[in-house]
């Protein structure tokens, strides 16, 4: 019997064979044998967080900014339950995570032992798959399968629950086998005929639009390159979901901005009036579609997605292409070129009227706001942050709420994997630990968490992690003293009854920064903003930036609930003008 290894050794051996270099975790009784083994594996660095939710989000930030799976290590019971929010978040936003949890010894499972919980039961609905390892001989296979499931097809989180006695038990280790198909779950099921149909639709279209999502990012940087080629080849306008930002340059003239509830006027009107809608790697989320019955009523719809269950789930489409975005776009471009259709010229004329209409919508300047020289407007703060960091290959994370939407609207992304935000689950407290993970993956880059003061307090303890590992993350708080998005909804829908949305007794964020051993900066007025932002950028330590903004600003434009895309609510300036002309009420 040669080379028997303990379960704990096998865990690390498998991580090494999967080229894992960083794990995010927190030790505890049921996972101690694995922690004991850590010292023998120098190529793997452990980042000690302050709460397991932080480990999960940090691993998400790491995964989304690097394209590699994030690895989390937690103990049984509360360790596992604390990571559930992050797993659910990763599941909703298709982020590859491998979470390893300790469990009480097998003979105690089911006895309500100390720190026991039904981890695989609790995490079943929020993972792609999970395993409880009851036999040491299964461990090598399960470890490799875990990475396979997390990273192939539509990516997502998985969990491996390892009882303590299994961590001590010994067996033979084997390396991962390549190209293992799990019960015939293929990801590329498309064929040339479907691509030909797509091209046929593209040639006939007079009012086309690309609507792209996080699937492009998940397909790898090559997919973004190909997307740019396809868009320039066709001359079509393109809009993106929250998760897709960065796949296409935000400052390109063909880019209409983000669509959806807080998307631009032109993007949403294009979606409503188009005659061909090509969805690439997006999922017709309810924040995007608005009222389903009146969603893009005149268009033929194409859906390109790696997940067959995304197709026809919400919106019925005319043509579905199931496959990896990168492969589908690649074949589309190849076919277009082969046919020598000279699309750039012939199409330009055909869709020139469409572009004229788009220019008209653009003149609305729906992202405009009324600036002030006395108080910092949050939009202005994001704009200044963008201008002062745009030449630096900056990575942006966010929390959830108004600040998140302002960041999406006013920060322009030019590269994929630079924008990490919690979209599907909408997890307040995501941005700070995610920034920790991003900085771990990119130690030399500028990483900024555009935050709200309410969200950031949910995971503020991770500042301690940032300080411990010298991760110079910048927490840029748009401090309006309210749960801004909640307040906005209460203003619009609940007769300004601001029930529990005001945070009295906020901490002094500058002193808080100092208490954690990092740097606190406060900006009070618009004219000192640039200077303070520069100071933040030039500080080689973690910074908490307390940007005091107008507490009553609302996030516009917006599609009110139950309304279609062409009935947007625009900002206060436009509402003023509308009142004068007497047309305002119809929009409100």
């Amino acid at each position, binding site marked *: 019997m040669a080379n028997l290894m303990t379960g704990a050794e096998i865990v690390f051996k498998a991580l090494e064979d999967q080229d894992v270099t960083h794990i995010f975790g927190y030790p505890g009784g049921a996972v101690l044998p694995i922690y004991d083994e850590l010292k023998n594996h120098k190529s793997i660095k452990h980042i000690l967080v302050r709460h397991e939710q932080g480990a999960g989000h940090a691993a998400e930030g790491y995964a989304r900014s690097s394209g590699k799976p994030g690895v989390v290590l937690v103990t049984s019971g509360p360790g596992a339950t604390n990571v559930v929010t992050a797993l659910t978040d990763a599941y909703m936003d298709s982020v590859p995570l491998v979470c390893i949890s300790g469990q009480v010894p097998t003979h105690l499972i089911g006895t309500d032992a100390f720190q026991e919980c039904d981890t*695989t*039961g609790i995490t*079943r*609905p929020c993972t*792609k*798959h999970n395993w*409880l390892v*009851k036999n040491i001989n299964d461990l090598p296979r399960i470890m490799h399968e875990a990475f396979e*499931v997390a990273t192939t097809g539509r990516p997502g989180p998985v969990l491996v629950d390892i009882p303590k006695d299994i961590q001590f038990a010994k067996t033979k280790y084997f390396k991962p086998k390549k190209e293992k198909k*799990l*019960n*015939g*779950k293929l990801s590329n099921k498309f064929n040339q005929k479907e691509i030909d149909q797509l091209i046929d639709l593209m040639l006939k279209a007079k009012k086309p639009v690309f609507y792209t999502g996080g699937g492009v990012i998940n397909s790898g940087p090559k997919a973004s390159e190909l997307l740019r080629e396809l868009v320039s080849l066709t001359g079509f306008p393109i809009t993106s979901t929250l998760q897709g930002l960065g796949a296409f340059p935000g400052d390109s003239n063909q880019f209409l901005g983000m669509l959806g509830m807080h998307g631009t006027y032109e993007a949403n009107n294009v979606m409503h009036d188009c005659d061909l809608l090509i969805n690439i790697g997006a999922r017709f989320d*309810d924040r995007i*579609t*608005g*009222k*389903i*019955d009146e969603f893009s009523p005149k268009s033929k719809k194409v859906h390109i997605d790696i*997940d*067959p*269950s995304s*197709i*026809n*789930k919400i919106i*019925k489409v005319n043509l579905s292409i199931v496959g990896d975005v990168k492969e589908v776009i690649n074949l589309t471009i190849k076919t277009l070129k082969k046919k020598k259709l000279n699309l750039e010229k012939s199409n330009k004329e055909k869709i020139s009227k469409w572009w004229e209409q788009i220019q008209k919508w653009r003149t609305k300047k729906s992202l405009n706001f009324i600036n002030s020289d006395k108080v910092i407007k949050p939009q202005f703060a994001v704009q200044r942050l963008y201008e002062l960091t745009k030449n630096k290959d900056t990575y942006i994370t966010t929390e959830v709420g108004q600040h998140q939407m302002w960041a999406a609207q006013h920060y322009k992304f030019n590269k994929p994997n630079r924008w990490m935000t919690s979209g599907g689950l909408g997890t307040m407290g995501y941005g700070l630990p995610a920034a920790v993970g991003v900085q771990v993956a990119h130690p030399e880059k500028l990483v900024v968490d555009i935050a709200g003061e309410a969200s950031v307090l949910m995971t503020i303890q991770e500042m301690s992690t940032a300080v411990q590992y010298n991760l110079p993350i910048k927490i840029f708080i748009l401090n309006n003293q309210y749960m801004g998005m909640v307040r906005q*909804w209460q203003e619009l*829908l*609940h007769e300004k009854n601001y029930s529990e949305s005001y945070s009295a007794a906020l901490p002094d964020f500058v002193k808080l920064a100092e208490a954690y051993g990092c740097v606190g900066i406060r900006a009070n007025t618009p004219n000192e903003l640039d200077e303070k932002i520069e100071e933040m950028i030039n500080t080689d330590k973690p910074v908490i930036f307390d940007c005091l903004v107008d507490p009553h600003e609302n996030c516009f434009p917006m599609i*009110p*609930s*139950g309304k279609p895309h062409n009935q947007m609510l625009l900002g206060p300036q436009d509402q003023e003008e509308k009142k004068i002309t007497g047309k305002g009420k119809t929009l409100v």
Partner: protein
Amino acid sequence: MAKSKSAYSTPTKQGKIDTHIIVVWVDNESGVLARVVGLFSGRGYNIESLAVAEIDSKKNLSRITIVTTGTPRVIEQIKLQLKKLVPVHKVADFKKEDKKIIFKEMALLKIVANSVKIKRAINACKKFNGVILDNTKKSVVIQITALRRDIDKITKILKPLGLVSVSRTGAVAMTRGAEVFK
């Protein structure tokens, strides 16, 4: 227009609801039934009946038969979501009205009564191929294999004849002819 007070859209009109029989071939491993059933409850799908057992001990395969109701879109989603589960090999879907498919359910019926009523009960079951599994002076246990609605019918008939206990399985299904679902 009434002002919506929700951040979500209001439900739109639904399609026609049909009854379908979904057959799922899965790896026979611990937790697999919980995954399948959890998918149904988690996404708000119905389960009218459920039958599950191992069918191939060498390949370690189980066959789960689920009777469910839903609009065409929901049924499509059920199939696609099931196919995404790691231990699921294949998924078949049959409409209840499909003539090419055989559906069967089994019931055990216990009747406790005097000999006259027991005799009448046994006679009533003859139409449905009743099999007597146990017989005493005061009681009888009858096995019936039939369609769901036939079993509903017979239990109604047997109620006044001393039916005290009913045990039923979920439906199982099989295609007619030489065809095998791939």
